[in-house]
């Protein structure tokens, strides 16, 4: 093995550095070797984007044979420059399976592999591409952002990306790429998932070059350079970066009442806990293409109830549901393939769930974060979008219990259902409120909330039109809630009593010391002491 590695290294050093344009007549051997060990399993050994892993990825890996690339700095429809490819290989593509190879492959090897990739589409790279012109960079200001906002309306960016940029425009459900696969417009509020980077220059480049093979056009002919910079700054202003990434505890304040309306302004006044989500990849059906990657959580409590406010981006509102709900896994690969084609697919609802341990842990041991385990069951509050507007007296939330992912969660009896809920969807965003009494009679099934205790909580989200239901879901690890206990009156009383006591004792000491001095003075003080006490 070491010999092979050494031979590879030697070849890399002996190989001439890759030239810019036209592809060399013979494929560079080291590039081929790197490609086959590092790239082929996704992009396919023949570069057709059909490696053994490809079917499980969303978006799919690039088919190199067409020479069509999304991330370019060249005129629309033209091939990328070597530097464009180098940047993509080095930095990876956020929000996709393409990793940043800069940390692993030396620059020479990255150049070699790029030279090899170009040999899959020699005609596309036959002529040198024309780069877009960048002009003078306009800096971000409230004025440029305002002008950019006008351009966003004028160019009808919202038709795909939505009014607030959450990828929920009216045209979004119909978009397809050049290969006929369904694609979703970018959610512009998630800067960390911008495919080609989220700096103003990156966004400017995408607006100017377009994204080949996708419905994203170039705006070179529509807007001048200054306008494209303004639009880029507006797009960047839509990004909602997490304020405190890595926070683990949601501190819950006491309140007079809990608003059941998710759009009530009191919710907006609370600082949310921002919880990143991953696909459920722990057991079959493993799901590595979750639609939702973050949920914002807020909560209030009164002396009787607790209420949660959950907010997440979902460009499509799915409020219908076909039973039986669970689409079967394909049973072949370890993961389930994403299928966005309409044909033969069950209609599925959007949903969200809160997960708590049934009993508050006394030590560090928790139920397993995926639906608990046999010794430590969990309590789930499952809100379902298809239950909106049910007849009065019913609730869109079902309480369930689970003892591990091996058995589906079991709903509680009708009497056990105590969670009220309400959800609203607007402009590509769900907001859901769930309210329950702090304690219930269902001990052994329901979580009992105690102020001052750390209460583990985890989150599950389903996007119906993305094919999510059952274990095909986005989920989080355990987080913690802390109901901040109201300040007990003793807290002020005890120190007051202690201070009065200490003051009284001190006064008594002073009195006694003075009386002693008077007594000694009357008896005739010793000479030494009189001299010292002054």
């Amino acid at each position, binding site marked *: *093995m070491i010999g092979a590695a050494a031979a590879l290294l030697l070849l890399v050093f002996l190989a001439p550095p890759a030239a810019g344009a036209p592809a060399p007549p013979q494929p560079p051997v080291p590039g081929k070797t790197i490609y086959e060990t590092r790239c082929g399993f996704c992009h396919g050994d023949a570069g057709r984007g059909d490696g053994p*892993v490809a079917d499980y990825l969303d978006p799919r890996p690039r088919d190199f044979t067409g020479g069509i690339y999304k991330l370019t700095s060249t005129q629309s429809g033209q091939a990328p420059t070597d530097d464009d490819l180098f940047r993509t290989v080095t930095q990876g593509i956020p929000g996709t399976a393409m990793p940043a190879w800069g940390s692993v492959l030396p620059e020479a090897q990255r150049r070699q592999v790029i030279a090899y990739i170009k040999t899959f589409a020699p005609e596309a790279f036959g002529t040198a591409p024309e780069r877009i012109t960048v002009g003078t960079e306009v800096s971000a200001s409230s004025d440029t952002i305002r002008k950019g906002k006008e351009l966003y309306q004028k160019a009808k960016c919202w038709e795909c990306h939505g009014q607030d940029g959450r990828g929920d425009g009216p045209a979004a459900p119909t978009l397809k790429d050049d290969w006929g696969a369904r694609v979703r417009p970018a959610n512009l509020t998630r800067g960390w998932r911008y495919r080609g980077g989220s700096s103003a220059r990156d966004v400017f480049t995408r607006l100017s070059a377009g994204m080949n093979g996708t419905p994203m056009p170039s705006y070179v002919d529509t807007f001048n350079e200054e306008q494209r910079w303004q639009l880029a700054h507006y797009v960047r202003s839509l990004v909602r970066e997490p304020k405190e990434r890595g926070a683990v505890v949601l501190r819950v304040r006491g309140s007079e009442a809990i608003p059941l309306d998710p759009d009530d302004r009191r919710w907006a006044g609370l600082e949310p806990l921002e919880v*990143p989500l991953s696909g459920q*990849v722990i057991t079959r059906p493993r799901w590595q293409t979750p639609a939702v990657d973050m949920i914002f959580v807020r909560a209030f409590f009164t002396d009787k109830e607790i209420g949660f406010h959950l907010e997440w981006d979902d460009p499509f509102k799915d409020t219908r549901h076909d039973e039986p709900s669970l689409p079967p896994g394909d049973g072949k690969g370890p993961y389930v393939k994403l299928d966005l084609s309409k044909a033969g697919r069950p209609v599925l609802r959007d949903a969200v769930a809160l997960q708590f341990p049934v009993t508050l842990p006394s030590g560090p041991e928790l139920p397993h*974060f995926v639906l608990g385990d046999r010794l430590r069951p969990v309590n789930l509050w499952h809100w379902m979008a298809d239950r909106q507007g049910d007849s009065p007296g019913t609730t869109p939330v079902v309480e369930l219990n689970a003892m591990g992912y091996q058995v589906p969660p079991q709903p509680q009896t009708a009497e056990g259902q105590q969670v009220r809920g309400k959800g609203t969807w607007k402009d590509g965003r769900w907001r859901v409120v769930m309210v329950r009494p702090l304690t219930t009679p269902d001990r052994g099934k329901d979580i009992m909330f105690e102020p001052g205790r*750390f209460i583990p909580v985890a989150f599950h989200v389903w996007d119906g039109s993305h094919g999510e239901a059952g274990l095909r879901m986005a989920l989080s690890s355990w987080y913690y809630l802390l109901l901040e206990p109201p300040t007990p009156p003793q807290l002020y009383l005890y120190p007051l009593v202690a201070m009065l006591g*200490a003051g009284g004792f001190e006064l008594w000491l002073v009195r006694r010391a*003075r009386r002693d001095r008077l007594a000694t003075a009357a008896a005739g003080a010793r000479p*030494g002491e009189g001299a010292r006490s002054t």
Partner: protein
Amino acid sequence: MRPRTLSLFWATVLSLAAVYLLLAVAAPYVSMWMAGRDQPLPIPRAAMAMYLVLALAGAAIYISTDDEKLREFLRPLQALLRGNPEGHALERALRVTLLAAGPLLVGAAVYSQTAPAVQTPTALRIQHPTIPGQFERLRNPFRTNDEAMQRHIAEGRILYQKNCRPCHGTKADGGGPMAWGFRLKPANFRDPGTIATVVEAYAFWRVKEGARGLPAEASPWDSAMPAWKDDLTDEQIWKIILAEYDIAGVAPRQPEKIE
């Protein structure tokens, strides 16, 4: 008249302060130097408390050995309590401040004892719990160091990229797309503290049994590691391990020989 020396009260206060500084500052640095560490080694709080109680008791015994010493010790305190009506304004202000500080300190101490203190829950996690006996002696049947091994690595690479890549990453750096949502991050195999520090049998155990096979001290409830015995054969797991070391560019630890 006695020569003007430090009064017994201040001598006591100074000695106690010296003992405290010795324990809190000097001792950690001395032990750092003696143990050859790069950070001071503080004395445990319980030991510290014991040493300070001993120092206080020693001072108390010394002072109470005769009445004259006790009187001398108490004299500044009594002077403070009595006050000196003819004293400087500053001296009187100092006395009032000192006397007022007493009850305030007591109040603050009581408040800090009764106020509800909350700390973020933390759990100590053993990263490498002991490998169960039935796995200990296993050897990777595909580590043959011949041409067949290269073929098995190629097979394992596909299996790794299909099954493990979503969390552990294409580069085996723990940075797969699914790592984002898990608070207990997937292991970075390029880190010398992970697979490079264990024998292959250990990696086999972890892949096969996953989170379910972990003991409580390794917080299995936080681990997203599947028990791959549900979906993969032993042969597939061994091939994945072969490829995993290859992708990460590290070598497994060699099992120790017991003669």
